[in-house]
């Protein structure tokens, strides 16, 4: 069990238990996150039922090209994250670092693309306000959800970048043993960020185009 002892922390007696606890704790946190986004999607669904036509019209205005590209980027990043975490567990240092760094690159790419999309949305007056582009008043509610949902998700991506960057750097400099349970925990979180987007994408980009 090379590298095992450095990764072991209080109050654990064995690395196996510690690893189990780290992923179990992360799953619990993900359950919490699921209710955060679940509540938001629930609120969206209620309004979609109340204002079906306005939501369809507004959904047509989102930028499906950016959205689709970003979906692909994020799904790929989940793959590289999985590779990175599994490689870390198997103590394949190089592969782990490559996987983690690629994940970082994709995550940043997601945010940059999202940034371009947000800029275009602004220019087209899709932010609910005085010059809002659409006529139906409930279209503003759709876009209120659009901004909140993509914003909250973007915050999660940013948080993900921070922790992935941190553990990658630690792995790089050797401060964190590759067998540390943190890699798997962070990977779990990152997959959640991905899955949330898998729900947001159809709600925001495809709903108005069916």
């Amino acid at each position, binding site marked *: 069990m090379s590298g095992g002892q450095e990764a072991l922390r209080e109050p654990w007696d064995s690395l196996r238990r510690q690893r189990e606890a780290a992923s179990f704790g992360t799953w619990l946190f993900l359950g919490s996150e699921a209710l955060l986004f679940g509540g938001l999607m629930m*609120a969206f669904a209620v309004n979609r039922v109340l204002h079906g036509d306005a939501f369809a019209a507004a959904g047509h205005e989102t930028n499906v090209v950016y959205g689709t590209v970003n979906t692909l980027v994020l799904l790929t990043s989940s793959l590289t994250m999985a590779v990175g975490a599994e490689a870390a567990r198997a103590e394949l240092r190089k592969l782990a670092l490559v996987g983690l760094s690629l994940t970082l690159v994709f995550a940043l790419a997601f945010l940059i693309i999202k940034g371009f999309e947000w800029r275009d949305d602004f220019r087209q007056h899709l932010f609910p306000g005085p010059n809002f582009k659409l006529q139906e008043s409930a279209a503003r*509610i759709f876009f209120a959800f659009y901004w909140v949902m993509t914003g909250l998700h973007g915050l999660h991506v940013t948080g993900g970048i921070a922790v992935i960057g941190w553990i990658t750097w630690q792995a790089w400099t050797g401060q964190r043993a590759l067998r540390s349970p943190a890699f798997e925990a962070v990977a779990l979180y990152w997959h959640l960020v991905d899955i949330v987007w898998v729900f947001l994408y159809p709600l925001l980009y495809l709903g108005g185009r069916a």
Partner: protein
Amino acid sequence: MSDIAAEGPIPGDAQPHQGLRGAPSYLTAEHGLAAWFLTTDHKRIALLYAAALTVFFFIGGAGAVAIRMELFTPQADLLSADGYNRMFTLHGTVMVWFFLVPSIPNTFGNFLLPLMIGARDLAFPRLNLFSWYLFIGAGALLVYALVAGGVDTGWTFYTPFSTAYSQSYVMAAALAVVLVGFSSIATGVNFIATVHMLRAPGMTWFRLPLLVWALYGTSLVIVLATPVLTLVLLLIVAERAFGLPIFDPAYGGDPLLFQHLFWFYSHPAVYIMILPSFGVVSELVTCFSRRQVFGYTFMVYAILWIAVVGFLVWGHHMFVSGQSLYANIVFSFLSFIIAVPSAIKVFNWTFTLYRGQITFDAPMLYALGFIGLFTLGGLTGLFLASVPIDVHVTDTYFVVAHFHFIMVGGAVSAFYGGLHFWWPKITGRMYPDVWARFAAVLMFFGFCFTFFPQFIMGFLGMPRRYQVYPPEFQIWHVLSSSGAVLLACAYLLPMGYLAWSLIWGDRAEEDPWKATGLEWRTSSPPPRDNFRTMPAVDTGPYFYHPDKEGPRHDEPEAHQNQGRET
């Protein structure tokens, strides 16, 4: 005594040796500020929480004092209408999120959970410390909101008032509550993982003390309900800060959606506030009646039942909101269902007392007070869950009395009961018994004086959240405000004599109450690593008398600690 111990189901060590005398306790193991503020010791973090919560209890209490002073007379004397709104919002917000939700879990829970299951620490000690800093950050933000000018929406933040009309510091307060929510979630995750992963050998699920079960159930609710509150407050912030009209009726937004989401959190939250005190009371009642708890498995299932069904009754806060009659009937029915496990618990505590060797030590007085007051609070909950009565008393003092009976008469009493019970373990000192009993009785009477009149005036039609009222209600308000003076004394008194005991109190033995939990088989206060040797367990909790045999009535029963040395 020895023959009884021999008849016990499995031999254990009823009187663990008084080891570790002179060895450093967790209090003296390390010195200096950093050893406190960067500690990962669950016991020290519990004390950090206790200090912070005390501050917030005073802030919230100050709000209550202002409210009760204002209500002495029917006219407005001290506060403007707006100032009054800000006072009751301050009181509610601080007391709910910055005192009651974290009170028992983050102090006794933090301190005792690892001890009671025979662990060295919580599963994630650094997360535990982090949650305290989140709490402090949230508290600082809230204090900023209050000092800058306060909030006037009530603790419920109803839209569209909170989004479109309120001129107060709603955003800062909402963000403070979001932050403190993350702190709760961190604690909840930590507790659940600890109970799953760190139980001592032999400590099976159905041997866990009921306080552990209660904390476990609470943590489940915290982890699953709090994010919805986070969400709904973030939506308010989005609407106020960026003009995103999610709940704005002018564009077809639905303010009732806010209420649904808010109560989807806040009804479970009332159980977050009361479940831990169920656990505390189960410990106290068994110990001071020297009885095994009546119906242990039912007590456990009742906790889990409450945790689950608590998510299904939120609509009883919205009977008059205009939701459909069918929804009302379903929510009313489910609210009756959820009273069943609470009633089971009251029933089982009562039966635990039956034929017990009851002594009226201070913790027991608090526990008995809890049972009575909680029962009244719960029963009036059933009144409120009946739609026709609720239509009559919605937003009156009847509701105020209902939830104060549970949250103050219940949860705060249990907090004080637990404080006295575990004080010797936490500090290593005994408090002065006579004073403690006096404070407990005073608290009970002060409480009844303060809140019972509120049932009556509420039923007669006195609405909540007004500072002026028709003169015919004055008599009840005067009773209530006078009672509040007694209650305030009863809350302050223990702070005095407990502080006194830190210096002049007798040294506590390892197991001063002859109780059975694992936390009593280590020194008082415990060492940094909790136990001399990690305990192993081969019996259930509460062996205050031999199995399948009632306690005798001539001499005190021998008790048997749940664990043994390994």
